[in-house]
């Protein structure tokens, strides 16, 4: 039918190259699109424009040296990657249960804060690309406030490098709980404004609803995880399926969609921001006191005072830095729930101070793969909300 119609009217398909330097492709993806009018007949995705050799760098340095690189995987939610990597290394060293309780809670808080920041960015950027600049800026400000919290904890806004093997770089600052309360109060106002501007906005609904939809089965076959999988109606969240950190001790819901279209993805993310706030508030209420670092000089460096006054401590410090923390031979895969889906670290150690292999399962790699499938038959303009709701993060997808 398609072909005959083309023959009759003697029309040609238009081949379009979109990206990688195109406002909607975030600079890291290229789409080759075959268009019939404005309808997408075929679409191919090319990635790799931000390949930065994450794995090679990890293999090149010591176990601790990998942290800054993990920051830059999903740079929207850096602490999550830090935590995921630290959890994997700790499990590989068999000391997962020795990590202090306070650290576990702080890590949970940082994970959720960064999830909020990630969702703010993602939703904001999506509306920006749909033309609603003002709504975008509301969420930029909300993210800015969230970053203020992250900054007050670890000194960096974006790439935090906060977590250490067996501990954390620093404890929470004084009055953190109060600050969180203030920020959340402000952010809720932004959230409400954003919600009012968009969720019932007819234009926005028309753009998001029934676009980029994927069925439950297809989503599973494409190994979707995270908000996109949940939007398709699959109730899978690593935080619930195999609770890690303090997620087993807090009460929260996972929002699940029904249709798997962009609007459901949007709603799931909006709700997850709310749930993250809940988790953080509970964590702050349950926050135990105590040390934040594991009491083992061979893993976590002793304090600077000790290093400068105690011979043994200095030797540990020296060995930890030069040779790296010694990790026994073995392999491990630890799944965690990143903002985009399952972030799993697969580590292989051959013994010694360097990882033999440090692989991260990139959630948006699998999501981006399905772009062609989701966009086929829809309009050129549908690429934009679909791609935004996938939330491709170059650093994570291309590593």
């Amino acid at each position, binding site marked *: 039918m398609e072909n005959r119609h083309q023959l009759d009217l003697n029309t040609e398909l238009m081949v379009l190259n979109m990206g990688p330097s195109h406002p909607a492709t975030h600079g890291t993806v290229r789409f080759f699109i075959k268009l019939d009018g404005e309808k997408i007949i075929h679409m191919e995705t090319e990635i790799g424009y931000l390949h930065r050799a994450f794995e090679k760098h990890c293999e090149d340095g010591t176990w601790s040296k990998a942290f800054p690189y993990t920051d830059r995987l999903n740079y929207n939610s850096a602490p999550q990657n830090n935590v995921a990597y630290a959890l994997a290394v700790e499990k590989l060293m068999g000391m997962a249960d020795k990590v202090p309780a306070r650290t576990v809670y702080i890590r949970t808080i940082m994970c959720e804060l960064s999830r909020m920041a990630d969702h703010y960015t993602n939703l904001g950027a999506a509306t920006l690309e749909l033309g609603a600049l003002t709504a975008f800026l509301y969420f930029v400000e909300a993210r800015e406030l969230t970053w203020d919290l992250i900054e007050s904890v670890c000194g960096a806004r974006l790439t935090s490098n906060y977590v250490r093997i067996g501990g954390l770089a620093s404890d929470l600052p004084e009055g953190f709980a109060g600050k969180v309360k203030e920020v959340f109060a402000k952010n809720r106002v932004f959230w409400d404004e954003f919600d009012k501007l968009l969720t019932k906005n007819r234009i926005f609904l028309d753009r998001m609803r029934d676009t980029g939809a994927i069925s439950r089965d297809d989503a599973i076959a494409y190994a979707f995880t995270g908000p996109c999988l949940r939007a398709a109606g699959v109730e899978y969240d690593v935080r619930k399926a195999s609770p890690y950190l303090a997620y087993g001790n807090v009460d929260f819901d996972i929002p699940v969609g029904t249709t798997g279209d962009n609007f459901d993805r949007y709603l799931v993310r909006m709700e997850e921001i709310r749930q993250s706030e809940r988790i953080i508030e509970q964590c702050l209420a349950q926050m135990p006191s105590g040390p934040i670092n594991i009491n083992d000089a061979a893993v976590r460096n002793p304090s600077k005072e000790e290093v400068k006054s105690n011979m043994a401590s200095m030797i540990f410090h020296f060995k930890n830095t030069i040779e790296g923390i010694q990790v026994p031979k073995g392999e491990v895969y630890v799944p965690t729930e990143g903002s985009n889906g399952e972030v799993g670290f697969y580590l292989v150690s051959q013994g010694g101070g360097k990882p033999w292999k440090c692989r991260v399962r990139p959630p948006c790699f699998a999501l981006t793969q399905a772009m062609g499938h989701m966009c086929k038959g829809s309009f*050129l*303009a549908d690429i934009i909300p679909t791609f935004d709701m996938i939330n491709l993060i170059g650093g994570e997808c291309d590593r």
Partner: protein
Amino acid sequence: MFDYTYLPAPNLIPSIVEMMLKIVFIFSMNMGVFAPLLGWVERKQSALMQDRIGANRAEIFGFTVFGLLHTVTDAIKLLTKEDFIPRGADRPLHYLAPFIAVVPSLVAFAVIPFGGKYMLWGHEVNLVIADLNVGMLYVFAVASLATYGAVIAGWASNNSWSMLGSMRVGAQMLSYEVAMGLTLVGIFMVYGSLQLTTIGMAQENFFHWGIFLQPLGFILFIACALAENKRTPFDMPEAESELIAGYFTEYSGLKFAMFWMAEFLEMVTIAAVLVALFFGGWHIPFITHQGLIAAMGYLFGANFGAIAAMIIHVAVFWLKVVVWIMILMLIRWSLPRFRFDQVMKLGWKIVLPLALANIFITGLVLLAVR
């Protein structure tokens, strides 16, 4: 009080002077005030909406004038920017397109009255450049010419994105031109004229303003006008995130600025048409035209009173236009954009039938009233 129906024999020289003055006034209002200033207004208004400060750094001898100088710097920058014509482009058309885009919105202003009729020293001044009896038809005709600018620009650029943009312009304008014409038929029926001055005079009574007589027509017209203006939520032809810059992707420097200007001028034209048709033109609510002239005449004497009334009326007209421009900008900065097929659907399946229904209802009501 003089007899308003009395028309003196046309005196050639005052008429020419009057005509020249009006043209100069409209031209300078558009090119001198609105075209450059709207960029600033847009920046500042969006900044206000988004909790920002907005451009305020450009200064001469320490004076920043609320960031107004950024308009000047933009002009200087764009003037000194390389004028670029892509390889494989149709050179003459590439040159021509921006002019075709700018001129219609300026010319359309010819029939829009920005004041009423005044007697000055025995010479009647009619504040409209050309008081055509086909009024609005002329506006439609000229405004649709602007489409050619965009279409030609996209075609001449030899770029897929531009081409897509110009195709979208073509389709969008075609759809909304029809709907726009039909939405206004109601107005023409109510006032019994196409002539904008007549429509203006008919709105002397506050409750006879177009918005009260044709509320549905007004809403439909706003939708069509926004679509004609090619700004968010109808900015498909230049949708940044889809088509980079749409039909003017391959334009740089001054020619790019002209497209920009065309958009702003179109916005002024739309606001002016809105005011002339639906918001009582130059009239102040509850004050009649003659009443103001008489009151001013009482204060300043017949001639200067008429001048004073004229100034007030013109000011009121432009004030209304500015308010409407602000509202149009408010819409532009708060809504996301449609998808292309949704725009078409809105045009053909919602606006057009509603416009037809509006005509029908208006006809019935008129029949009942008479």
